[in-house]
């Protein structure tokens, strides 16, 4: 029997560009053409001013650690506890949930506001997740 896998996202028409982006190694956000608001999660209108004129752009992939928990139990399928569930504040403004890789999953190693950079992990040939690691240099 296969190991239980982590929950896999299923894109919708409004989010497909995001998942196409991660598969291509890009973190894609949206910016409102009318008011310049950058927002997440994806939708084809601006949640700040309601304009439908919005553009997709490639984000820097840089951010910092906004907050997290280190989950011990119960563990989600596909995860070995303890593992950190993090919220990353992107340089462009929006925040997103993710995991921190290449870093001990401890309070000592996971310092709030530490600089992070995006890394991509393919779950299969359709879905690639945006994860984050401590920024180099």
């Amino acid at each position, binding site marked *: 029997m296969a190991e239980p896998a982590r*929950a896999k996202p299923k894109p919708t028409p409004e989010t497909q560009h995001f998942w196409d982006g991660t598969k291509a190694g890009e973190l894609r956000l949206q910016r409102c053409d009318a008011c310049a608001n950058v927002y997440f999660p994806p939708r084809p209108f601006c949640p700040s001013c309601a304009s439908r004129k919005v553009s997709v752009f490639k984000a820097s992939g840089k951010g910092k650690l906004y*907050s997290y928990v*280190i989950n011990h139990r119960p563990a*989600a399928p596909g995860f070995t506890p*303890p593992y950190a569930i993090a919220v990353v504040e992107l340089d462009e403004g929006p925040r997103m949930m*993710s*995991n921190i890789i290449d870093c001990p999953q401890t309070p000592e190693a996971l310092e709030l506001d530490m600089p992070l950079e995006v890394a991509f992990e393919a779950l299969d040939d359709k879905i690639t997740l945006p994860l984050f690691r401590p920024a180099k240099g």
Partner: protein
Amino acid sequence: MRRNQVAVVGAAETTELGVIPNMSQIQLHADAALNAIADASLKLSDIDGFATAVETPQQMAHYLGITPTWVDGTSVGGCSFMLHVRHAAAAIEAGLCKTVLITHAESGKSMIGKQPRFTAPDSLNGQFEAPFGVYGPPSMFPIPVLRFMKTHGITHEQLAMVAVVQREWAAKNPRATMKDPITVADVLNSRMIAYPFRLLQCCLVTDGGGALILTSADRAKDFPQKPVYILGTGESVETPMVSQMKTFDSSRAFKVAGPLAFKEAGISHKDVDHLMIYDAFAHLPLYGLGDLGFMPHEETGKFIADGNTRPGGKLPLNTNGGGLSYMHSGMYGMYALQESVRQMRGIAPAQVPNAKISVCHGVGGMFAASGTIIFTNEK
């Protein structure tokens, strides 16, 4: 909404609380409803308005044998019942119905007749949170707390004191699930669940339910119980995704609902004799004290650690023991409302002497929603 036009005239919990292996979830609703009907000396046929959450109004109305002319199925998590009270008060004032029954029950521990929670993989939560290992409230609700602690200078020991103080209240309550005294060391040495929170900073998981009956203040005086009037109300929602809260330093839903209720009630914070803040986890009372305007967030940890909310303190908080020690079947808001009603009737196991105004503040989801009800026993 006008003050004191609607009153609670019936209030009861399920006959048993804790582990109830001999009742399904809908029967727990019915048990609470029948107890509340008896409390108000009414018949089910007197009920013309009905509200419930998780279970649908049509399911429960049919099971109970009620034919309502007003229904509310608002289901925004554990504070749904605060929203039901607010909506019911408006409906009664508008003449849409006369006597409203609100029920909650959950077979949270025994899981009998309870549908499992499911996050669809194409929902926003399914796409942008579930893949990163969130798995139930303990892995999600505490996500903001490290940022809250850093911004406001709150310590782990202060967050442990929330659980310690609430256990002091629970010790006075024969129906509380956990009554043995605990220390800060006990809390900080209990099993790690989701850092920074340990077992004793997470709510219980139990079975149970509760029900309320509301009617107009004019009719309320003819009922056997002391009327408890609705003085002020507020509600709001923010986001079902904890990662997408506007800030982790406070809750926007709290900051909308709480002040709305205070403004409607026309009271100031020093008028509050008794306070309930839904405590699914130990950080919620701190968010609540700050977001409802009792004090700056920076002072909340010290305020609790200094004993101001414990028995005999100047602001009695979560006097039934709270979700941490009393009970928590999944949607605790109903039990917070029940305790406020008991305090206003003057019959609570840990009664606050001469309490005249009670503020009852609820959270839904992981800071997703909020409802605040302010009660008084003086018209």
